[in-house]
């Protein structure tokens, strides 16, 4: 139970406060103050999140046609999406991205966090801050930089190819997905490392001492003490990475502008939804695609959380 943390609220201490009579003026005043603090956020949240989500659901149930105008079609848009090969090829692509890129990135982040936390590194705070830096770099700039370096003529991969005797062109139909995976890994490695590192630093030091007294070596301590302590943050990082993979948009969309013809408009479901609504003028269908992806994301995130919080996982 203790590891089911990602969304489990910390017990508000107010609940355990000294018992008061139920409708005392003080209690009412406190309760009003509580609402007062939350209200500004809540109003904004309703207007900018709840209403658009509701509107999106509404849109997905309608269709706008030249003849007949805007009319209710029930789940017809959803049925269309489920047989839409353009949509599914994007879903497959981001799923592939998810099962390859996310484990690599999280494993690297985990190794970094464990290494920095182990105290066996020279200059550990330098490592921590430098590895985190790419997170602060705007995604657009990250893609522009890597895009230049991927250039086989003037970039890094060209030079590297010269050195090795063969060249691969990262901006080609075959390699562009791994090339994007590399950019995303570069951007978020340090961020995930920091999440893991922050969780490690809350592990009570006595646990390590106890493990050492029991004769546990460094690796034994990692597997028996550190990884269990990290389970909650691994679940969080995995969920955020799943959301990120399914939302993949910025990197392919920016690469598209210079890699003409390599990245199709349905490369990812998000790119597809974007194209549908802003070039194809099919907002109803675009909303449907976005909702299906949200449901996928929520279901997979939920499964990850259930599995992650199982005791024997």
């Amino acid at each position, binding site marked *: 139970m203790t590891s089911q943390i990602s969304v489990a609220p*910390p017990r508000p201490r107010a609940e355990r406060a000294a018992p008061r009579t139920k409708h005392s003026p003080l209690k009412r005043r406190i309760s009003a103050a*509580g609402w007062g603090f939350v209200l500004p956020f809540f109003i904004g949240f309703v207007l900018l999140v709840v209403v658009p989500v509701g509107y999106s659901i509404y849109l997905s149930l309608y269709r706008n046609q030249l003849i007949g105008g805007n009319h209710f079609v029930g789940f017809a848009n959803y049925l269309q999406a489920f047989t839409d090969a353009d949509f599914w090829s994007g879903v497959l692509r981001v799923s592939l991205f998810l099962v390859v890129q996310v484990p690599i990135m999280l494993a690297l982040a985990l190794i970094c966090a464990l290494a920095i936390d182990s105290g066996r590194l020279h200059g550990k705070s330098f490592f921590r801050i430098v590895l985190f830096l790419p997170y602060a770099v*705007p995604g657009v700039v990250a893609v522009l930089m890597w895009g230049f370096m991927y250039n086989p003529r003037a970039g890094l991969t060209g030079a590297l190819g010269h050195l090795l005797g063969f060249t691969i062109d990262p901006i080609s139909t075959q390699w562009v997905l791994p090339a994007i995976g590399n950019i995303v890994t570069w951007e978020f490695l340090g961020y995930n490392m920091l999440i893991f590192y922050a969780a490690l630093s809350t592990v009570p030091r006595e646990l390590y001492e106890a493990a050492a007294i029991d004769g546990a070596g460094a690796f034994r301590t990692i597997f028996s003490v550190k990884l269990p302590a990290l389970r909650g943050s691994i679940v969080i990082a995995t969920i955020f990475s799943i959301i990120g993979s399914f939302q993949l948009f910025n990197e392919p969309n920016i690469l598209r502008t210079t890699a003409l013809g390599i990245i199709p408009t349905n490369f990812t479901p998000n790119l597809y939804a974007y194209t549908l609504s802003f070039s194809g003028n099919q907002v109803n269908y675009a909303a449907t695609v976005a909702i299906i992806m949200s449901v996928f994301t929520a279901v997979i995130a939920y499964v990850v959380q259930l599995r992650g919080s199982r005791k024997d996982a």
Partner: protein
Amino acid sequence: MTELTRRMPQAPHRPRRSVVLTIVMALLLVYTLVPLAWLVISATKSNSDLVNTFGFAFGHFNLFANVADVFTYEGGVYGRWLINTLIYVVVGAGAATVLATLGGYGLAKYDFPGKKAVFAIILGAIAVPGTALAVPTFLLFSKVGLTNTMWAVILPSAISPFGLYLMWVFASDAIPTELMEAARVDGSGELRTFRTISLRLLVPGIVTVALFAIVATWNNYFLPLIMLNDPKLYPLTLGLQQWNAETVGVGAKPVFSLVTTGSLLAVIPIVAAFLLLQRYWQSGLSAGSVKQ
């Protein structure tokens, strides 16, 4: 040696430095730094050097001319983008921080009817992909005439469910309820307690939430891409992308040095903010975001 140091009572957990581990990590460090080094080197090169010299070799030192070009090209539009970005960050991320701080504090330290429901809805929203919101938000904004205005970027930036969550976890630990009750007994109103006592204790959490909101707004690309038509309203990210698009296709202009130098200038402030404030956000993060 490791065993020995471990047994010493003064230093119970100080393992020996490992050279191998340091080398392995240094490789990852190189991976992290290579693109940034490339960016810094490239920003010092002229257009022809950018194309004709090896990426990690210096050419003629042309940085100052590049910077001047960046700020004068197309009537100095880069300066405009920079100011726009600052406006989006100050107003959008500023509002996000204020709202998340108040809301997180209220959820953490007060008990009120409906709180559990509010909380469940907001947490559920963290899982809603931001891009799924963008299309309906765009359509709603266009109905009320907000698209292609600064508000179209600022308003959605002001709501950060993740910031609220961070703040709520942070506040429930950072502020002893006893302290608030003592203030109450002394006759302090709730707002005054917040201003005079709680706010100070929340500073590391506020800095953390603010920094993440600043990064999110500074780096925002999708929202302005959808909402804005007028290049005069663009933030830096969208502007740089536009210049980048000018380097290819029909009528391509070789403005590579503008893209690289403009990118470097867009990175520096945000990286500087992180470095200068690291003491705050690192403590805010370890206390908050990943609590068990």
